[in-house]
């Protein structure tokens, strides 16, 4: 049985990617199970989806703890423990990352035995209109890595899964899926089902005893603890100020911000708490001076953020 996990962020189409691959396997005569796992159910939050494909009916259910292949659409998730990208990877598994960083560097960074394959971005990551195709790209690459799905089947699967969209969009996605498929050609078929061990393992069972109710009630004994949830990790786009155009009417961006993360410094320059900004881009849409731009998070994280202009500058910008 093939066991494949897709990791991405809410909105990046991991459910669609898993469905394209699932449909492709199904068209190739496999029994299939595909499912998303929504997690926080919020755009930008880590989500994963999975596909099982086998020649006989599938009785296994639920998340895949030991995958043969892990596809990562967003490389900022790889190092994020909450995303669980590296969970259950062994030397047999293949980790395919959609990234500009070379495999050697990932190998150094990550403590994993898995074989690492890099899927170079097939489009300009800064171009928002192009990013929507990432699900087709990831599915196409995965199809090739399994070696069990032909190009024609892949095209047909994309067509089936995107049937509600216009023909132009479907064709465009088919092209991207095929391009990713061809891009992976040198690694075709390297992801293989790993044999399942039926050797009885220790269960690790314990007998759960009674705890005092003060301990056993599901309560957090602290005020304002939601601030510790760094929802900024959900961001795929980062709002960035162009202070040369900002007229410090910060009540506009600040009032419209649904998460209350825009504040003004003592000179009236707006600041964003990037630990909690979810990247919804409402401020970008509302700014009357168009002085806020949405930049891809992966790119922005490597830039120095602009600071308010002097003489009003009193401290370093976040």
């Amino acid at each position, binding site marked *: 049985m093939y066991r494949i996990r897709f990791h991405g962020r809410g909105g990046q189409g991991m459910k669609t990617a898993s*469905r394209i691959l*699932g*449909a492709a396997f*199904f068209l190739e005569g496999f*029994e*299939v*199970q*595909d*499912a*998303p*796992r*929504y997690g926080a*159910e919020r755009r930008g939050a880590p989500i994963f989806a999975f596909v099982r494909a086998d020649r006989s009916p*599938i*009785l*296994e*259910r*639920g*998340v895949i*703890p030991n995958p043969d292949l892990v596809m990562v659409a967003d490389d900022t998730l790889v190092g994020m423990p909450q995303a669980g990208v590296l969970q259950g990877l062994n030397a047999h598994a293949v980790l395919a990352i959609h990234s500009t960083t070379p495999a050697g560097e990932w190998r150094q960074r990550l403590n994993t035995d898995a074989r690492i394959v890099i899927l170079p971005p097939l489009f300009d990551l800064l171009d928002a209109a192009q990013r929507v195709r990432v699900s087709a790209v990831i599915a196409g690459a995965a199809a090739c890595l399994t070696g069990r799905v032909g190009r024609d089947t892949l095209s047909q699967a994309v067509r089936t899964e995107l049937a509600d969209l216009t023909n132009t969009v479907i064709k465009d996605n088919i092209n991207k899926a095929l391009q990713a498929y061809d891009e992976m050609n040198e690694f075709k078929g390297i992801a293989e089902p790993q044999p399942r061990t*039926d050797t*009885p*393992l*220790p*269960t*690790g*069972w*314990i*007998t*759960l*005893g*009674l*705890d*005092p109710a*003060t*301990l*056993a009630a*599901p*309560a*957090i*004994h*602290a005020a304002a603890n939601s601030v510790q949830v760094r929802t900024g990790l959900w961001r795929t786009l980062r709002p960035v100020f162009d202070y040369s155009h900002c007229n410090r009417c910060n009540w506009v961006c600040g009032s419209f911000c649904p998460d209350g993360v825009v504040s003004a410094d003592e000179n009236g320059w707006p600041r964003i708490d990037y630990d909690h900004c979810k990247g919804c881009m409402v401020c970008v849409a509302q700014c009357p001076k168009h002085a806020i731009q949405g930049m891809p998070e992966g790119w922005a994280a490597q830039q120095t953020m602009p600071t308010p202009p002097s003489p009003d500058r009193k401290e370093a910008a976040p």
Partner: protein
Amino acid sequence: MTQRTLITGNGAAAWGARLAGAEYMPVFPITPQTEIIETLGDWIGKGEMGGRMVTLESEHSMITAAGAGAATGVRVFTATSSQGLLYGMEMLYTVAGWRVPLVLVNVSRGLSAPITLEPDHNDILAARDSGCLQIHAATCQEVVDAILIAYRVAEDARVRLPAIVNLDGFYLSFTREPVWLPDASKVAQFLPDMDPDEFAFRADKPVSAAVAVLGGGPYSYFRYQTHLAALGAVEVFEEACVEYDRVFGRSYAPVMAHRLDDAEIVFVMMGSFATKAMDAVDRLRAQGVKAGLARPLLLRPWPQDAIRKALTGRKAVVVVDQNLSMGFGGVLRGEVASALYGQADAPGALLGYVGGLGGRDITFAEFAEMAREAETAAAGGEAPPTRLLYTQAELREVRNLQTLAHAQGLTPGGEGRS
């Protein structure tokens, strides 16, 4: 529509309602059920499906509307989950007493508190004594098939009770599997239009339904009539299964058997997690363990005879309950024990485990260990107390959470006071 298609459990539920020709659909959204009513709404909006959908302001109103709609003689479909089923519970018991047929799909999700999204069966089991029939699907295929069977049984003049079809959240609701969608013309053959003439009220035939009775005598009569109708529904269900097999070629029974013929150790489980048990049975068989699975498809009415037939004469029976009756243990184990007590060839041991709460996985290693404990218990003639499937690693995770939460009562070593 006779080809095999990849479809989610929620999609299969919507198809069940569509193929049954549901005419009235009072609805209210709740995760993980909402996709069902979204799908139906989409079809109705596009004109692909007839009927009328109404969004109510709560599940309580929704179930009231469902019962009232059914009382007018139209085919009613509705769906909910978890807290929603509990919120509508008063009316669930009430509409069963009205003796009206309808189908409600419940997408199982663990109950609050603490709140969660993933499945176990405490929500649906809270409806166990309501008078509604209860069918537990284990696959997406079974969801659509069970809905059609449920309508036929619920509408049968010998039964006329609401029926609930249960499917597990996430494990079925959002999971696509290959499904044979029944052919619409064959559905018409299996499930003809409801003939409501004898009970539906109309303007020219007014009825005061569900009146009050004072005194235990009349009350006992009406309540016991509901019970008798439910008991008789086992046979009606069996008849419907035979007919379903004849029309669609898929065979069902009140208790589904997997490798039971010569089984010595028999697992008993309901719902989608039972496929994990099927997998474990196959793997244990490969190791020479004579394991099998008996899966109640029908929980209410309780198929006592089929349960006895499946479980008597075995070395040991292992009930894995994906629910927890606080202060008692697993509900299904209690039901199974009641069916086996006093039977001449009752199994050598009856073991109870509680697992899969809130979607917690059950591993092959755990099934193998349960089978081993069953062998030991059968040899010694004594079953160990009910065990929660729970590991040291899981407790460690909870201790970490409790530390983060500044929970009182943790000892410095990180262990509780137990």
